[in-house]
């Protein structure tokens, strides 16, 4: 499947911004099953400095610094990406989860350093006793690691309610567990905290998802959205994606932009302003399948 993605973010400030410095994670990275056929990122006003780099996690990052007064900032990413569907995975064929944990921690196993990195708690995924207890229910002794992960994802999907008013960007994962409500970001953080409480390795994936308009309705411009899900490591299958918000294993309707330890590593856009006072933001995303 080939998609055209248009991701447009507009900030308007109540008073002029003297300087703004931003970090943008909107350029999709190449991952297995995903090819980047085209990408542009347009910033207005034109930055004084614009730098592209690859971050520690291998993501494409654009950093920019605008050093002239401005009351509006537009960041627009357009990408053309082809996604190949994932083949079926026999979850039960993965190794028992305790073995995977041992292997991640064993210095003699020479597991990828990257795998070790994603097994550690991060600021937004710090395990607590309650989180560990919640995770344990899906991981009885000896259970294959991906079967356990699937059970956890299904439980989050069925026991939690999607509610964009229940949380904000700073809601801790403990509260998400308590109130059983949140958005994709919260569910992904919770799943990561659960897996990392067992010392399994899992990462946060930021990207887009194709949405389907109700039957008979046309696709509305700008109505799609950024999305987040997770990816779990097992020795046999490498990294396997799971979407706790939708209770599924992504096939070819998820488009990866970036991954990291949690949202903070891959936030689509974050910045520091000098001046500006109040700001309003409008985000529009279109994911259009073109073939």
């Amino acid at each position, binding site marked *: 499947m080939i998609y055209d993605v248009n991701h447009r973010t507009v900030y308007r400030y109540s008073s002029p911004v003297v300087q703004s410095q931003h970090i943008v994670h909107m350029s999709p990275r190449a991952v297995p099953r995903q090819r980047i056929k085209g990408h542009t990122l347009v910033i207005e006003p034109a930055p004084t400095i614009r730098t592209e780099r690859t971050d520690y996690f291998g993501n494409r990052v654009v*950093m920019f*610094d605008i050093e002239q007064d401005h009351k509006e900032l537009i960041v627009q990413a357009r990408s053309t990406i082809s996604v190949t569907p994932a083949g079926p995975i026999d979850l039960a064929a993965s190794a028992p989860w305790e073995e995977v944990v*041992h292997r991640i*921690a064993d*210095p003699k196993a020479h597991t990828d350093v990257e795998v*070790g990195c994603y097994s550690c708690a991060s600021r937004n995924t710090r395990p607590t006793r309650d989180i560990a207890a919640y995770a344990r229910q899906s991981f009885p002794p000896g259970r294959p690691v991906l079967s356990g992960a699937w059970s956890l994802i299904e439980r989050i999907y069925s026991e939690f309610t999607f509610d964009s008013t229940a949380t904000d960007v700073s809601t801790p994962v403990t509260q998400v567990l308590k109130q059983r409500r949140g958005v994709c*970001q919260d569910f992904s953080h919770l799943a990561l905290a659960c897996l990392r409480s067992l010392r399994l390795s899992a990462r946060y994936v930021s990207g887009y998802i194709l949405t389907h308009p109700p039957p008979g309705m046309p696709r509305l411009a700008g109505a799609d959205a950024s999305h987040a899900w997770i990816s779990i490591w097992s020795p046999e299958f490498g990294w396997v994606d799971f979407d706790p918000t939708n209770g599924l294993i992504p096939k070819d309707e998820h488009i990866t932009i970036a991954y990291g330890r949690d949202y903070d590593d891959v936030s689509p856009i*974050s910045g*520091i302003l000098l001046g*500006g006072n109040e700001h309003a933001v409008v985000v529009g995303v279109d994911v259009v399948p073109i073939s």
Partner: protein
Amino acid sequence: MNLEARLAQTTGGDLLTGYAPAKSGGYDEMIDAAGNVRPHWRPFLDALATLPSSTQTDRAEQLNRRVREMGIAHDIFADPAAPGKRWEVDLVPLILASSEWHALQKAILQRTRLLNAILTDIYGEQQLLRDGLIPSGLVFSDPAFLSPCSGIQPAAGYLQFYAVDLAREPDGSWRIIDNHTETPAGVGYALANRVVHTQVAGDLFDACNSLRLAPFFQSVQAGLTALTGRRDPRIALLTPGPLHDDYFSHAYLARYLGYLLVEGGDLRTAGDNVYLKTLEGLQRVDLIVRCIEGRTADPLELDAGRYGGPPGLVQACRKSPQLVRNSLGSAVAQNRGLAPYLPAICRRLFREDLLLADTPRRWLGDAANRRHVIANLDRMVIRSAQEGTGRPGGAQYGQLGSSLTEAQRHALIEEIELHGEMLVAEERVGFGTMPAFSSRGLTPQPFAVRFFVAATSEGLTVMPGGLAMAIVPNLAVALSAPEPRTHDVWIISDGEVPPHQSLWQNRIETARVQRSPRVIQSRVADDLFWLGRYAERADWIMRVLRSALQPTRGDSVPALVQRAARACLDALATEEHAPPAHYEVNDAVAIESVAHELIASKDGRHTLDDTLDKLYRVANLTRDRLSLEAFRVLNHFRPGTDWRRAIVDCPPDALLDLIEDGLGWLAAFNGLFHENMTRNKGWSFLDMGRRIERAGNLSEAVLWLFSKPMPQEEESGRLLYLLEVADSFITYRSRYRLDPMLALVLDLLLLDETNPRSLAYQLASISQHLGSLPQAQASTNLTDERRLILSMLSSVRHLDVEALAKDATRSDLQGALRKQLRLLPQLTTAIERHYFSLLEDQPHRVHTRLEPKP
């Protein structure tokens, strides 16, 4: 012969009579196992023994008086009498023989190279992680690992400064109890200790042929200069600010090295460079000596919402990897969990054995370690793997397994199971002892010591000195000394010690004539402005108090002057601009109660107590701009001193003397500033603050005293009083030889621009200062503050004192003064807006949340 008898025979008999190191086999620095004084201690003990014991005690006390005068402390705003805030320096130093020092130096330098190499690997190839020599979970669980800093490989290595804490084993070998790779780790304290100690006991130091510190700091300076590649670089020391526990150390080090002391808000990045916000606009910074935690250094790429450094600093470091020293992210090398892995890493990287062993320790990210430690919890102390910026004595005690309640134990085990990666376990090992001074002689005391390393122009160098601290042996496993009782550290030289070299004596080829070279941060200008205001306000309040409290003694203080003084006091205390109440001369009780209201009332606007608090506080904020003498004088006003306590609740008859003391100190402080401070822009702001305050005080006093017509006799009393409180009595007398007349007094105090106490003089000075400051915008229009000052000055110059004096209603006089009092705050606001405005615009973070559809 018993131990004591032998000691008495060797040296300093009285001093050593009670000295009895533990029999349990711990190592003592001064006495060997056979009970003999170690040879390298003899010169010191001999020199000390030549002093009478009363002199010894005096010296020991003088030392700590100097410590308090210099303001050496962990928390400079705290009440110095409060437990845990006192900093003490012992008369007895820790003395190390040169042979031992050579071995220690070698081992410490090896350790520095090793930690540098580990950092280079962690932020580079990560071969040590891939080969399993460092568990990856140890690095990635450490919040000090800053992934955005990966790949910034400074050619000079990550560590400009390193400090190591050591404890003595019973067999005399050393073990490392902590490493500090984040900041200079309190080297300023060690320097200050040395300065204080040599001031009080320089003769003892000289008698021992010990190594000096100045050459070390000279090569530290030269090393930093060389890194910038510039002859005359602008180097800043970045501190978290005066509220940080180690601020004293930062300020002291900055001053000693001649660097600017800056806070995150003083800096800004633009075009991948770092700039300082100064009165002249942005000025580029060539190098930053970092005394802030790495993760707080850049809110854009590191911890969001923490502004220890300017946003964009990481990116600036990518362009100039040696911009920040120590490099960002260096703290990961001080992770305590690394200890057990170091011997193997050292062999792999250097093919060398590790020369100094670490204290036995287990990292609890390892499952086998967790099981072992939980099973043997009673013998273990559990501590954080990563802890702070290395405040000397600040190491947490940790949790001792055997001292926990059942519930605490349960919670600790759960913590280990959940977050073992961030914890270590240690078994307790003993500490050696060293002598501490007391009036009854020397006593053995458990201690640990910190040594400091810097990358200097001579390569990696260990400072030939250190910081020893008394520790509580039953609780501490590291350098934990919540009540810092410290010792200087002396290294006995093999050869002749070169003569004293001051750090400020540059070689002639590196010196260059430069006038007013130091830039002034906008923040510092702001602080100096308020320093001037508070010093003047405190002076004024005390003058008013002194006049009002003076008893009438026969003819010396006429009753009418007394009455005027009390009226003024009343007006100042009650802040009512209405004509003040009239007191009978003998109404002493009422006066005392008003005086106390002015001193310490809780709801008063400008009480003396409150003004002195602010004066002390702002003096601390500008500490790196104050001479040591000036600061020492101001230290009398520190909250919590005997004087500060007495002035609030002493009996009335003692109050006058206390106020005389206070006025004397302020006069000394003002004098020091007047005589010693360069007439640069900083001086201009300090002086403007003082002038604005004085103009306001004088205008108010005249307004209060002559607000309405009054009998001739009473008016004379008030005129005399006004001349006295405005310090212009002698001038008046020498000029007129008349009893005071209103027109003449008004001329002298309002219009006479040659009288430094007059209103016109204050305004003219302010106008001059403003004229000397840089104009932010090259515009033909006058800036607000210049427009205001010209209008104020010309309206004073146009006053007709004869007419004012003749006007029986005094309404013209009132009008003129009220105008000044109305414009003064506007002037302050205009100056603040123009020169300090870069401060108001603090950056803030924008973070967009995902709003996905289900």
